[in-house]
C-alpha cells in the first residue's frame, strides 16, 4: 500500500480531521491508488526545469495604501457561530 493507515492518521491530525476505522481503511486504499497513479510523474525528466506555481506571469500587484470603507464589526460577526462583546467566542484554548 502506497500510504499506510498510520500515515493517513498522521495527515488527518495535521489537517484537523478525525476518522473512524472504516474511513481510515477506505481513505488509505483510495488515496493509495491515487498516489500510485500520480507516480507516473516520475517518468518525466524534469532536470533543470523550473517549477510553475502560477500560470500568468505577474509579480507584486502594488497599490496605494489608502484607507477604504471596511465591514462594520457587527456585519463581520453576523455569521459567527458564537459571539460575545463584539468578539468571536470559542471553546477554551488551554485545557
Amino acid at each position, binding site marked *: 500500500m502506497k*500510504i499506510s493507515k498510520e*500515515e*493517513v492518521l*498522521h*495527515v*488527518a491530525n*495535521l*489537517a*484537523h*480531521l*478525525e*476518522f473512524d476505522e472504516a*474511513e481510515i481503511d477506505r*481513505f488509505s486504499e*483510495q*488515496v493509495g*491508488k*491515487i*498516489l500510485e*497513479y*500520480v*507516480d*507516473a*510523474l*516520475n*517518468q*518525466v525528466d*524534469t532536470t533543470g*526545469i*523550473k*517549477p*510553475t*506555481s*502560477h*500560470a*500568468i506571469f*505577474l509579480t507584486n*500587484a502594488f*497599490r496605494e495604501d489608502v484607507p477604504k470603507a471596511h*465591514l462594520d464589526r457587527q*456585519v*463581520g460577526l*453576523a*455569521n*459567527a*457561530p*458564537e459571539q460575545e462583546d463584539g468578539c*468571536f467566542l*470559542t*471553546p*477554551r*484554548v488551554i*485545557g
Partner: protein
Amino acid sequence: MNLYELTIHEAHRLLQEKRISAVELTRSVLGRIEAVEGRVDAYLTIAAEKALEQAMAADKLIGAGDSRPLTGIPLAVKDVICTRGLRTTCASKILANFVPPYDATVSEKLQKAGAIFLGKVNMDEFAMGSSTENSGFKPTRNPWNPDYVPGGSSGGSAAAVAADMCLGALGSDTGGSIRQPASHCGVVGLKPTYGRVSRYGLVAYASSLDQIGPITKDVTDCALLMNAIAGHDSKDSTSVPREVPDYSRNLKNGLDDIIVGLPREYHDSGGLDPDVARAVDNAKAVLKDLGVRFTDVSLPHTPYAVAAYYVIAPAEASSNLARYDGVRFGVRDKSSDSLQEMFRRTRSGGFGAEVKRRIILGTYALSAGYYDAYYGKASQVRTLIMEDFKKAFEACHVLLSPVAPTPAFKIGENTDDPLTMYLSDIFTIPANLAGIPGMSIPCGFSSKGLPIGLQLMARHFDEDTLFKVGYNFEQASDFHDKKPML
C-alpha cells in the same frame, strides 16, 4: 414561445423594444423553475421575491431609456460565488447557514449591469467533482435524461441553462468544471484565461487554477456575459491589468485566416467513446467548410496532466480549506469543550468524503519529506505542459478536441472509484494548468440522445478567437437549438 426559452440577446431586444417587461420575463422563468425543479434539482436557493424586486428596478431603468445588454436578464449563480445577503453554501454542510456580508466582484458587476439573480445553483461540494453527485445536499439531474449526471462541478449551472431555468449562469472552472457540464448538458461554457475575471468573492478551491466563467444557451450570450464580468480588479492580486475588448465585435467575422491545431495526444487517446469521436469528426468537417485550415500538433506531456493536477489542486485545497474551523462563520460542532476538539469535530462532520479525500491527499503531498517528490515534481511538469501549449500555438490559433472522453454517465456509476472520475477530466485539465482559455460548444448527440461538446482552446487572453470560431460553428450547426423534453 415561452419567455423562459429566450436567449439573453433575444430577451434584451424584446425588453428594449418594450414588448415584454423584466417582471414578465422573471415571472416566466420562476414559473419554469417551479414546474421542473422537482425533476432537475438544479437550485440550492431560489430568491423569487428578491428577483422580482430586481426586475421591477430593471423595468424602471428600461423605462428611463437605460437598457444595457443585461438589464432585466434573470441569471443563476453557482453557489461558490458570494452574493451579499443571499446564502452561499458551496454545496457544503459546513457552510449551510453562510450568508455573505459582501458581494463577489462578478456579482457586483452583474447587478450593476442590471442583471437579476434568480438564486444559487448546485455543484460538487467546494467545486470538487465531475458529476455534482458530491453536493452535500442533493445530486442534480441531467435535463436530457434524469438517470444521468449533468457533469460537474458546475452541474447546477449547466442543467439550469439547458432546462431554461435561467437565461444564463455563472460557473467556475478549476479542472473543467464549466466546460464538462456544459458539454454534458448541451450548452455553451467558457473558462476564461486565468486572471481575466476577478476571483474576489469566489470561494477558493485551488487558487492557481480557479476561474469564473459564463454558461449560456449560445455563443452570443456567452460573449455578452464575458463583457460584463471580465476586467482587472484591485481586490484580486492575480487579476491582470489589461484592457477588455468587446467580445461581441468579431463574432460575425469569417474564419478564412484561422488555423486549427489537432493535438495528436487528444485525438489518438484510447478510451474515446465512438459517439464522441464521430461528433468531433463531424465538427471538423463543418469547420473545414467554413474555411479553416488544419494542422497536426503535439502536446507530448498530456498523459501527465491529470497526475500533476491531482497533486497541485488538492495541495492548494488543503491550504484553502483550513479556514473552515467553526470560529468565524459556518457550522460549529457545539459538543466540544476544547478548541482543538471543536476544530476536528466541526470539520469532520461538515465536509463530505471527496473533500476529505482531497484534503488528505493535499496535506500528504505538502508534508515534510514528500513536498519535493509530489508538489515540486508536479509544478515542474506543469511548466512542461505550459511549454507544450506555447509551442503548439506557434503553428495554430485554436486547438480542437473533445471536452470529455464520453457523454454523461449514469448517476452512481463512478461514485465508488474516485480515480476513474478524475480521468474523465483528461482533456480539460491541461488548459487550467497552462492558464489558457477554453470553450465548450454543443457538437452532437450520442446514440442515447445525450449531448456532446467540442472544446476549443486558444492562447492566453485570446477569448476573442474562441468566440469567433464558436459563433461561426454554431451558425453552421443546429445542436444549440435542440431542447431537452422535460
